[in-house]
């Protein structure tokens, strides 16, 4: 890979050890993909995880004096004091999380602790080159917004944020953004849970690639698209997709394939959605808790949760959690949704995710969620995956 004089100097350590390490990683990635050069990025999202590999790298950069040069948001970790009071977090786990959060602050990241930063804290625009990790955020910014990012790891995204560059490869090039599989959707998609099942089906069917969805006649909502992104990356690795007629690089099927339309067609009908639904259930038994907000709930989903819980009481034997971002919670409080959910006995919790060690108390419990991604992490023993309104009903009835 060709490096400019300035890039060489960073690599030699002239600007400190932190930026040197960041550059070393980017150069290695460039070498892996035979990139010819580095290109500027204007924002990044680091899928911080509060785990040890994450800690090692962010401390390496922070201790070496590196600072993010472009807006670089962060994924959920957890509020240590809040969860320690509830569940008693083991000291070594809490120390890792504390050090991770502190190091991201020192490196100058946006402490969003959100998995949907493109909704508020760090929004790319069409055509912008960015470095977004988080398997659900990568396809969203590529497909829905039309920004350009490769599938990044937390560390490569952070390194790109620090250097404000990334090696040029993969989805940066228009020709690599064309569809690879044609998916004919013959199911009627009524709500975002149907998009959850659709995403799960498509990821499972093609594994890896750029699916082009046809047959969808109603404009997908923000939540439909968020769920499709998240769930297609539970069962597969989908960094980009097109919905003919709706997503930005797919006004037609021909455009989505850049003229080279796939001859093969995979059909997803009600039958496949039902099959996916059945496959996701690991139990039909009594639930101990409901966990919503994977990915983080939007304001609209908090409104719906509040509406469904209004005037009701969650059963004594069930804990009810909704995960969202700190910014969304502020608005939800203002609109009265949080108080309605809390009056019913639920909790709206920010900055965290089911995949964090803070949920230690649920390890041997049975959970209900509207998210296969939430169930997939196996932070709890058994899972039932249902629509939001069925989750609320089960929480109220206690079964």
């Amino acid at each position, binding site marked *: 890979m060709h490096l400019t004089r300035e890039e060489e100097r960073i690599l030699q350590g002239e600007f400190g050890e932190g930026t040197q390490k960041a550059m070393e990683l980017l150069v*290695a*990635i460039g070498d*892996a993909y035979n990139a010819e050069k580095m290109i500027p990025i204007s924002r990044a999202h680091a899928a911080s995880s509060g785990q040890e*590999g*994450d800690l090692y790298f962010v401390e390496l950069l922070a201790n070496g004096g590196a600072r993010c040069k472009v807006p670089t948001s962060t994924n959920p970790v957890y509020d240590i004091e809040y969860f320690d009071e509830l569940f008693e977090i083991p000291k070594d786990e809490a120390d890792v999380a504390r050090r991770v959060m502190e190091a991201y602050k020192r490196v100058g990241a946006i402490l969003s602790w959100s998995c949907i930063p493109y909704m508020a804290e760090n929004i790319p625009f069409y055509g912008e080159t960015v470095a977004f990790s988080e398997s659900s955020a990568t396809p969203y910014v590529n497909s829905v917004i039309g920004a350009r990012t*490769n599938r990044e790891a937390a560390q490569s995204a952070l390194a790109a944020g620090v250097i404000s560059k990334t090696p040029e490869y993969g989805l940066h090039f228009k020709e690599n953004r064309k569809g690879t599989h044609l998916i004919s959707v013959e199911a009627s998609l009524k709500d975002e849970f149907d998009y959850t099942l659709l995403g799960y089906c498509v990821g499972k069917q093609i594994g890896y690639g750029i699916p082009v969805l046809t047959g969808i006649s109603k404009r997908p909502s923000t939540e439909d698209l968020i769920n499709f992104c998240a769930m297609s990356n539970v069962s597969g690795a989908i960094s980009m997709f097109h919905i003919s007629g709706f997503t930005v690089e797919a006004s037609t099927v021909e455009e989505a394939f850049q003229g080279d339309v796939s001859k093969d067609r995979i059909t997803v009908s009600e039958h496949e959605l039902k099959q996916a639904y059945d496959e996701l259930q690991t139990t039909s038994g009594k639930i101990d808790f409901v966990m919503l907000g994977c990915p983080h709930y939007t304001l609209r989903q908090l409104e719906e949760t509040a509406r469904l819980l209004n005037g009701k009481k969650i059963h004594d034997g069930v804990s009810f959690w909704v995960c969202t971002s700190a910014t969304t919670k502020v608005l939800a409080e203002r609109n009265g949704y949080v108080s309605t959910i809390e009056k019913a006995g639920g909790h709206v919790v920010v900055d965290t995710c089911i995949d964090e060690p803070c949920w230690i108390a649920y390890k041997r419990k049975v959970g209900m969620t509207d998210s296969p991604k939430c169930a997939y992490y196996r932070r709890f023993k058994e899972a039932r995956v249902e629509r939001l309104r069925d989750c609320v009903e089960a929480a109220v009835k206690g079964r």
Partner: protein
Amino acid sequence: MTMMNSEIKLKCHKIIGGYGEGEALVSNEPVCFYLTEPKTGIVREKNHELAGKSLAGKVLVFPSGKASSVVQIDGLFKLAQNNVAPKALIVKDVETVLVVSAFIVKVPLVDKLEKDPFEVVHTGDFVKVDAEKGIVTVTRSSL
């Protein structure tokens, strides 16, 4: 009977630099470092061709990594902390997550051997990976 050693030198492409040597362990299936026993390096993924075998100290030859970035990186990191990570990685299809994983634990990572590594390298061969020089040396002892 005399022991014959056959030695082959192959050019390769450096991704993460450094030097590592050890016994070869060849996997035709993608490898997830998270699905190993962190204290021993033993693969505990059911139905994997390496199930029950240890990655510790080996030169791992494999087609690609798999699984989410968080688990893959954390998996290799834990092996390295317990000193049971592979000594070098020879891969066919490399992607970002694997580069980050190898970078963090400072294990040499190479690809594009001048001959197909799955034909040239066999489990049990002794392999030296000099990523800096871009040379892989494979030694097979036969009676």
